[in-house]
């Protein structure tokens, strides 16, 4: 167990200690031929092999993130509901109208329905979905007495729009894979690396052995970013040089995971706009390469979506799905004022389950998706 090394690196980041000067060899990228997945054991970040919960917790605690401190105070009792509500409660103050206020002492007439349409559209639900919900409400407006009635009806209608069959399957399963390979994709800046970091923390907390593949070899310092997450979460990082072939990184990571009997491999990829044909080809290659090393891998291919994204998210989902066959979505940045309504259309049209949602920047701010709770926080 190379815990001393771990401790040294950690001290580099802690606020009050003197800056660490030692160049530790673990940061050196593996010298490997980029084109062919090498069979030799790759050089890698050395991390504690099986950190128990208390270790990873203290590690997180010692981080200098001033932002996290304030949040941490409020989050002790945690829980998805509270966190999500907390994220969205800030929103409430900023919104000029809310569904509750909409109805205050008013009858449901065309004006009110138009305002409702505005609310739905500005939640990024999309024109079509919004209009069909408004139409349904127009039909049954006699039944609506209170703001609660209206909200319940909106939620019901949206749930109907979302693929209900999928709602029961949002829990991911770990049975029968060793290791389970999860490929994480998305356009630039949606929070892929952060999501992977949070997932790694979640899995290590569950006592699983996690390996991270630094597949974003394009963006400057993306590897370093993932390395810090590996450190925080107690996962092991496999990396190559910048600009090396991401498929070979993925291959080596899977190779290492099999050799070390890891439970989970999380493969990071560079952000790519879905309309860049050659970049999508590169993604397909990563998929093929994983399958070559372990038939059936990746077992999960996630698309990370930014909740602030508008109607383009549907296009992203379609094209990524066509290229690599998605099995689920992750919706990030739900702690802002964006509602991420576009996932309703995505679920409706593609039937992809939402695995997780991101509601903040701390390690614990990744929650399993629950459609009902999501909608309750939304309206």
């Amino acid at each position, binding site marked *: 167990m190379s815990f001393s090394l771990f401790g040294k690196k950690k001290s580099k980041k802690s606020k009050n200690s003197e800056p660490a000067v030692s160049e530790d060899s673990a940061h050196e990228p593996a010298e490997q031929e980029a084109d062919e997945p090498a069979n030799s054991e790759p050089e890698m970040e050395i991390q504690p092999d099986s950190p128990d919960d208390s270790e990873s917790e203290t590690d997180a605690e010692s981080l200098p993130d001033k932002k996290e401190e304030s949040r941490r105070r409020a989050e002790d009792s945690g829980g998805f509901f509270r966190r999500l509500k907390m994220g969205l409660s800030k929103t409430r103050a900023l919104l000029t109208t809310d569904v509750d206020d909409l109805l205050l002492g008013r009858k449901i007439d065309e004006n009110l329905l138009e305002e409702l349409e505005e609310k739905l559209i500005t939640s990024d639900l999309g024109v079509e979905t919004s209009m069909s919900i408004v139409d349904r409400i127009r039909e049954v407006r006699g039944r609506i007495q209170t703001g609660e009635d209206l909200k319940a009806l909106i939620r019901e209608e949206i749930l109907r729009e979302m693929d209900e069959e999928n709602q029961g399957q949002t829990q991911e399963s770990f049975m029968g894979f060793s290791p389970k390979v999860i490929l994480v994709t998305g356009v630039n*800046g949606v929070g892929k690396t952060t999501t992977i970091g949070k997932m790694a923390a979640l899995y290590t907390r569950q006592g699983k052995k996690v390996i991270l593949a630094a597949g974003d070899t394009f963006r400057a310092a993306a590897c370093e970013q993932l390395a810090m997450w590996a450190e925080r979460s107690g996962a092991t990082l496999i990396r190559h040089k910048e600009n090396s072939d991401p498929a070979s990184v993925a291959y080596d990571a899977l190779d290492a995971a099999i050799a070390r009997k890891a439970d989970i491999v999380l493969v990071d990829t560079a952000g790519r706009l879905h309309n860049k044909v050659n970049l999508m080809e590169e993604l397909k290659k990563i998929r093929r390469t994983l399958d070559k090393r372990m038939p059936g891998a990746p077992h999960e291919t996630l698309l990370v979506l930014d909740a602030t994204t508008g109607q383009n998210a549907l296009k992203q989902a379609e094209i990524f799905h066509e290229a690599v066959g998605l099995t689920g979505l992750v919706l990030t940045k739900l702690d802002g004022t964006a509602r991420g309504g576009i996932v309703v259309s995505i679920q409706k049209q593609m039937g992809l389950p939402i695995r997780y949602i991101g509601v903040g920047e701390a390690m614990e701010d990744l929650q399993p998706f629950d459609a009902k709770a999501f909608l309750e926080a939304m309206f």
Partner: protein
Amino acid sequence: MFDSLNERLGSVFKALKGRGKLTEAHIEDGMKEVRMALLEADVHYRVVKQFVADVKARSLGREVMESLTPGQQVVKIVYEELTRLMGEASVPLELSGPKPAVVMLVGLQGAGKTTTAGKLALYLRKTGKKPYLVPADVYRPAAIEQLQKLAGEIGVPVYPSESSADPLDICLDAREDARKQGCDVLLVDTAGRLHVDETLMAELVRIREKMTPSDILLVADAMTGQDAVKMASAFDQDLGIGGIVLTKTDGDARGGAALSIRSVTGRPVKFVGTGEKISALDLFHPDRMASRILGMGDTLSLIEKAQEMVDEKQAADLERKLRKNEFTLEDFRDQLRQVRKMGPIGDLLKMLPGVNEKALGKMNIDERELVRVEAIINSMTPEERRRHAIINGSRRKRIARGSGTRVQDVNQLLKNYTQTMKMVKKLNKGGLKGMRGMRGMLPF
């Protein structure tokens, strides 16, 4: 960006233009479509409402109804209103005040602030400024390293920030350092933050107060949905932004966020990020963008791009060679390289009137084709490049092997080249008459 908006509006206008006389009902129908198109492009609900009302009011006025081509008039109105919505003319970066002028980059997480900071530094250096980069994002892991690497790539000085330091201290210290180094623009890359995060917004206000930036740029993702308005107005209220940088416009987002932000904050879009390369940052021209949305092309930008890339001396040289029929495969390769420097061919074509995503269709312009052609020429000996006639069967085989292509590819290239040369000869003899066949002859 804006392509599908362009398509949607195109079909609306086609229906309108087809009529000799427009009734109020026609315009109503047309505006309903325009409204849908804009909403689907993520333009904010209220902005759309206002826009449609304005266009409708003007379209029902006398200038349209009494016109002989009413449809054309409506298109003109939409164009004018779109331009107005996006701002009339392009607005440059504000760099007044004592040196170094401070420019702050702010925005949500993942909008592309750090990348934009690097691009902006390169842009400023090209215009003769001496930029200095300040990584002030102490929160996101490796954000500082990212900017330092970008700075290293373009050779711009960068402040050696520590992630344990306070962002304001970093900025103050960096300003001193920039002054010492004689830099005239300080580009501050701040951490991504949510506009509802009071602590972090207060941090920006503190930095602004001490640094008195001459410009504050809000970096926003072109794919942003309806939330763009809330986000932008919150940043504007707290900080008073000076302009907007719209990133990731090389995606297929319809870019309605640009219209919304501009319209709600009244601040101009100053730059657009157009690709992953560090040089992929353009000044924003509202009128040209409006013209692209309406499918009228953007020839001005195309010409500018060409001027930027083409060396005048080289061009004169080329003309002389063409006149003397001395245009060799070597010259041809130079031409190819220049075209490629201008950016992806698909993007260039889209700047031409009438060319949109649909027109390009499944053509799927393969940039690699150009790379292949260049590789073939690279695999020739200098002698072969100057005198293509000597390239016989065995030479062709060797060239194909050397460039990783097939003999057929080499044959094709040589055939195209000789045909082009024939055209050139004809041209030189008979003036422009021979020009017509020229287009299909270029080997790409």
